[in-house]
Each structure stands twice: as structure tokens, then as C-alpha cells.
């Protein structure tokens, strides 16, 4: 933890608590007893160079995607690039500010509503950012799930069978793509989604 006074003020903490789903978490919890926003701030400051770790600078600074990927929570995640691109507010979508980082943690926290989670999951899985999940998006999604090497992919026939099954289960209007409402409908019936779509610092 940097000793350069990187503690959030109480007013800022309260504001972030109002705007996000991150909870305060009482001191009872011991080592993790500091508020979740303060912990997030500390982790974010560790990614910044030493000279920019003061309070004002840290709120304005932006961190490149490669540095975010070095966080242990995202290092092993095959969707890390999509996650960062979805939450980034910079024009080129290649860096995250502290508030973007808080948004990320808020959506992935325990207390976020299923609606918010499914909305952002849709955007993360939409690899070509066109507002629907088509066959290419789905096949890229499956490739992310099965592994990151060339030899871990499913064969072409298996992929076709799988995507046909997925579309049959979720594409209600039979147009070959999954839009946001169809996706949310499927997720609402998925019992594992709430437990797996979580990142805890």
C-alpha cells in the first residue's frame, strides 16, 4: 500500500456507495475490514506509477489495459479484454479510470441486481459490438470458454451442433441472432449465472 496518502475521503466513499453496489463492510471482518471502495482505490493506486498516487491524481489518472490485465482477478480470465473494453470510457477504449474500475467492480459485486449483470454480460459477449449475438459472436464465445490455444477448440461439426442447440434454446423469434431481451430471458432461467458472474477483490 502506497504511503502517499491514498485514502478516500468519507464524502467520496459515501457518494460511491450511493452510485455503485459496493458495500461498506464493517470492521468486524478483520483483514478485509476496510470499505470495498477504499480497497478498490488501494489496488488501483498500486497500478499507477509512484509519482501519480496522490488523491487527486489517482482520480484523474487512466491505466492502460495491459496493466489492468496484470491484476490477479483478471489475469486468468479469458474475457478480460472484452470486460475492459466494455467498461472503458476513453474514446479509443484502451484505458480505465478509477471510476471505470469502480463501475466494473460494482457490476461484478455480490449485491448487483441480475438485470444489471445480464445487461453487461450481453455487452461483454457481443464481440463485434453490433447489439446482437450472432453465430460468429457465439463461436468466439465458445472458443474463449474452451481454452486459449489452437488445439483446445471444438471441431467444426461440434461447434455447429453446439451453436444450433444454443440458438434453438434462446432465439425466440428465429432470426438467427440473440438480442438483449432474448438473452435476458435465457439468463433469468439460468440457475448458475448469479453465482458465476462475480469478481471479489
Amino acid at each position, binding site marked *: 500500500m502506497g504511503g502517499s496518502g491514498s485514502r478516500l475521503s468519507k464524502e467520496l466513499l459515501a457518494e460511491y456507495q450511493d452510485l455503485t453496489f459496493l458495500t461498506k463492510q464493517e470492521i468486524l471482518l478483520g483483514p478485509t475490514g476496510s470499505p470495498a471502495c477504499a480497497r478498490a482505490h488501494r489496488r488501483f493506486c498500486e497500478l499507477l506509477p509512484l509519482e501519480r498516487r496522490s488523491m487527486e491524481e489517482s482520480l484523474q489518472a487512466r491505466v492502460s489495459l495491459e496493466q489492468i490485465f496484470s491484476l490477479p482477478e483478471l489475469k486468468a480470465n*479469458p474475457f478480460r479484454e472484452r470486460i475492459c473494453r466494455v467498461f472503458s470510457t476513453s474514446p479509443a477504449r484502451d484505458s480505465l479510470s478509477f471510476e471505470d474500475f469502480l463501475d466494473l467492480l460494482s457490476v461484478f459485486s455480490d449485491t448487483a441486481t441480475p438485470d444489471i449483470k445480464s445487461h453487461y454480460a450481453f455487452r461483454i459477449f457481443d464481440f463485434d459490438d453490433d447489439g446482437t449475438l450472432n453465430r460468429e459472436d457465439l463461436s468466439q464465445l465458445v472458443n474463449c470458454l474452451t481454452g486459449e490455444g489452437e488445439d483446445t477448440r471444438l471441431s467444426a461439426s461440434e461447434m455447429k451442433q453446439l451453436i444450433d442447440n444454443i440458438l434453438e434454446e434462446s432465439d425466440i423469434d428465429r432470426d438467427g441472432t440473440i438480442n438483449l431481451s432474448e438473452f435476458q430471458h435465457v439468463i433469468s432461467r439460468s440457475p448458475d449465472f448469479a453465482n458465476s458472474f462475480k469478481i471479489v477483490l
Partner: protein
Amino acid sequence: MSDASASALPPGRPRRQPFVHPESLSLDSSFFSSPPVNFLQELPSYRSIARRRTNIPSRDKQSGTLLKPTDSYSSQLEEGIAENLNSQSIRKYALNISEKRRLRDIQETQMKYLSEWDQWKRYSSKSWKRFLEKAREMTTHLELWRDDIRSIGDIQCTVYPISSSGLIYFYSYIIDLLSGTGFLEETCLFYGHYTIDGVKFQNFTYDLPLAYLLSTIAYLALSLLWIVKRSVEGFKVNLIRSEEHFQSYCNKIFAGWDFCITNQSMADLKHSSLRYELRADLEEERIRQKIAERTSEETIRIYSLRLFLNCIVLAVLAACFYAIYRATIFSQEHMKKEIDKMIFGENLLILYLPSIVITLANFITPVIFARIIHYEDYSPGFEIRLTILRCVFMRLATICVLVFTLGSKITSCDNYSCELCGYNQKLYLCWETQVGQEMYKLMIFDFIIILAVTLFVDFPRKLLVTYCSSWKLMQCWGQQEFAIPDNVLGIVYGQTICWIGAFFSPLLPAIATVKFIIIFYVKEMSLLHTCRPSPRQFRASNSNFFFLLVLLIGLCLAVIPLTISMAHIPSSKACGPFTNSNTTWEVVPKTVSTFPSSLQSLVHGITSEAFAVPFFMIICLVMFYFIALAGAHKRVVVQLREQLSLESRDKRYLIQKLTEAQRDMRN
């Protein structure tokens, strides 16, 4: 350039093949190329998702407002939201923090124009919500073992146990402790300790017999309520949508990745298990298609083979039950010999003979069942479920056989010994205590076996695998896998024993609690240090429902011997709180007869046949009504889905025509 034929493609646009519904007509979506994407995005239905108003009718407070934070719409959306003020919390909007700030400022400026009453309402609802959040945080701290389960879950999110006279004195003390005889027999651990006298307070007497009976019934009823409540949550998902199997592809793909995974080796493991699962499911689907295409002679052959193998399974079960029956009878007959005449350990062996036989049967039969099911040619998922079902039945039925053997011994009389008391009072002075002792022994033995297996088999196995990995045997055998179904079945077994024994040994639930707590920590240590994850992962969601179902079956099986013993077998005359009544249940009618006469006639009316039969018929009617309602809903859902897909085709056809018309006009 322009081609009036409907099948012409605009130049340079690749044909995108949408998914073809097998029942669709020939003139379907694949006949037309897909309309331009920007056209689709101008449709009102798409825009309403992008810019949905916060029109929350009073009955539907749950729907959040979701907005796509596209820059061109942001100013419009803020006005749209601010127009309809509500007490929706700001965090439920899918915007980033700076946009939420702007929204909050707009809301706050709007608040000033509200009346005082509305402002106070808004403020108090906010404080109430904050209070609820704090309360919820507090209660999560109280959740038992939350941190432990989190640390297991850190590996993976989801997841679904002296001088010789002095020596003899010590030895008999140990035997008493292990078997519930001797000094333990007179403690409040067992039924025999309790007397018929009530406890006298100042104004009234606490009727001990009635309290004893009612507390057992209340304990069982609470367990039933809790199980039903938990399993209804899992069952609701499948009620309207008729799915053959619980694990659907969408659940695996969209919710398949655990975002909690932090280290690379875990991630590789997850990747490989997802690959394995997906391939297994696709394979299973292909097998199912093959099965559907079987010829009739093959079907006959397979069914006769299955019949034969099921007979073998029944024979195995019958053999185990007979072994338990004989072991129980032998143990009961030889239990009362003198200690001096025994060889060392023989006494313990005789006392624990039923438990030993049951445990052996529970070890051997799953292996036999797993072998047999290979030949029955089912799909892989069904194989696993059928094996588990057979093992469950085996475990629970063995307890029942034991209890019924005891019951038959207690009520079996030769010549005249039963006439006096209705049970065999020569051998069983206090039969409830004996039954309680048997349950106590089963529980203790189960506990010892679990500890012994974990300590003396799992840990050495891990040591051998780590240090002697060059041996061929070790490479074959490998490290222990944490088999979730076996462990959960062990818990259900222990809980069923506890339920049956609760009446005969009132402190048994407390002992069971301590036992489960200890087993949890031992198993947690074993899991974290000696086990590797199995390739076939159990999804927490559908397993939850299945294991709650098994628990429910255990509860039902436990209630049967209890009702028989309470209502039919006469209670002991020599001990216990029910010496005065014929059967245990008689206490209740006796108490009812002390009520005032109006209440008495009410109770008699409710329990008479004149009330019970119409009540039963009404319940049946209500059930049929709900079944019909569910069927009607299913049909409506199917019709609506078909209508939706038809509408989509119409829409695409019209857009296609429109673009062609536009093009024609331009040319």
C-alpha cells in the same frame, strides 16, 4: 441494377443464413437475404430497449431500467428518465459513474419542485433501504461457515461432510460409551430416563409425556417445512418450461465461466472441464438420436437384457437385506453375555455387528451397481443418475430393514410372554431405550468410519502419490477425487438415522450436530490438502434439487417406523413417560378430553371421517385445477413463441420489400 425478383441479393452483401426452424414453410427466412442492420436499429422495438422509459406500473416494481449509454442518446435519456420520477435507486441504471452523477443531480433538482409530502416519502424510503442493507450485511456475518466455504470457493466459485480389575473397569467404560449401555443408559440421553411425572410450577404442571411427544413431532414437521421450502426454489425453474434434462446448453455457455478464478492452473482446469462437459453433452445428444433410431429387434434385446440385470440388482439388494436381518438378530440375542466370558473385542464386535454389516454393504454395492449399469446401455447422464438412485435406495433401505427387524423382535413372542404387556417384556424391559441404543451405535460407528477413512486412507494415499509416484500402482490409482454425490449421500444417511432416533434418544440431534460440525472440518481439511477436482463437475444448481429430494425421501422413510411405534406398539410399562398409556399416541386423546367441551367437539369434528373425506376431495380438486392451469400456460407459451417467430419473419419480409422499393425509386 434493380432486380424485381425477391430472391435477388444486393451486390456485395454476403448471405447470412439464419437458423432454419425445422417446421417452417418453404417460403421462410432463408429465402430472403437479411435486411440491412441499420434499418433494424431504427425499429421502435429496438429503440425502446435503447431508451426505455421508466414507466413502472404499481404492480411491477422489480423491472430495472436499462439503457445503452450511447452518446447520441444520453441527453435524451436523461430527460426521459427525469420526466418520470420514482424512487428507483440510481445504481440500477446501466450507466457509468459520471452519467449516474448527472442523473442524480437532475433528480435532486427535480425534487425541489415536489411537495413536502413527496420529499419526505423519498427521504424516508432511502433511509429505510440503507437500514435494510446494513441489516442484510449483519446477517450474512452470522451465516455458519461462510468464510470456510468462501475459502473452498476461492478455488472455485460454485460449488456444490490397570491392575487387571482396573483395566476391566476402563474397558467396560469404553464399551458403555460406545454402545450406550451401562451408565449412559440412565442419563437423559435415552427414553428410559424420562418419567411420567410432570414438572410442577406455581400455577400449572408441565405435562412431560405430552411435551416429549409433541417436541418430536414438531422437530420432524420443521424439518419437512425447511426441506420443502428449499426444494420448491429449485423446482420452480422447471415447472412451466418442459425440459427433459436440467442442464441446458445456454446455462453452460453463458454462465459457464467462473469469474472468481484467479490462478492460471485453476483456469486451465476449468477450460478442460468445460471442454469435457460440452463434448460429453454433444456426444450424449448424438447417442440419444441413435437410440431413437433403433430397430425393434434391437429394442427387444436391450429390454430383456435390462430386465435380467434389474433382477440381479434386486437379488443383490435382497442378499444385503437378509444379511442385515441375520446380523441384527444375532447381535440382539448375544448382547447380554457377561464381559468376563468374552474374548477381548468380541463384545464390541457383537454390539456393532449390524453397523458393520450395513457399512460393508454400503461400500460394496455401489461398485457392483457401477459395473452392472455398463451393460444396460443407457445414455451417460442417465447412467449416473440411475446409479446414484440405486445407491440412495440401498442406504436408506438398510436402515429401515434394521429398524423393522428390531420391531419384529420386540413384538415377537413365543407362547405367553406377550399377553401381559403386548410386547416381549422378558427380553426387552425398556424397548424404546434399546432402539435408541441401536441408533446411537449406528451414528457413532458412522462417525468413526468417516474419520478413519479420511485419516487413514486419504492422507496416506496422498503421501504415497506425492513421494512414490514412480510406482505403477500409484500412477493407476492416482490421487483422491472429492466425489460430491458419495459425500452428500453420507450426510443424508446420518440425518436419517438422527430423525429415526430422535424419539427414542432425545439428545441424539445434539450429538448429530456436533458430529456434523467435526466432520465438516475434517472433510474440509481433506479436500484442501489431499484431493484433486474430478473431471465431471457437478453443477450446484441441479444437484441442490436432487439432493433435497433425497433428503425428503429419507425423512419420509424415517417417519414410517416412528408412526408404527408410536401408534401400534405398546409403550414400555417399566420405564419412560408413557407407562400409563397403552400406546404413546394415547397421551394426545387424553389431553384433548381435558379441554372444554366446545373445543373438544371441535377437535372431534375435525378428526372424524365426515370432515376428512370431503376435505381430501377438495384438496384433490384444487390440485387438478393447478395441474390444468400449468398445462394451459404451457400451451399458451408454445403458441406465443410460434407467433413471435412468425412476426419476425413478417418483419424481415416487409423490410426487404421496403429496401427494394427504395432502391427501385432511386434508380
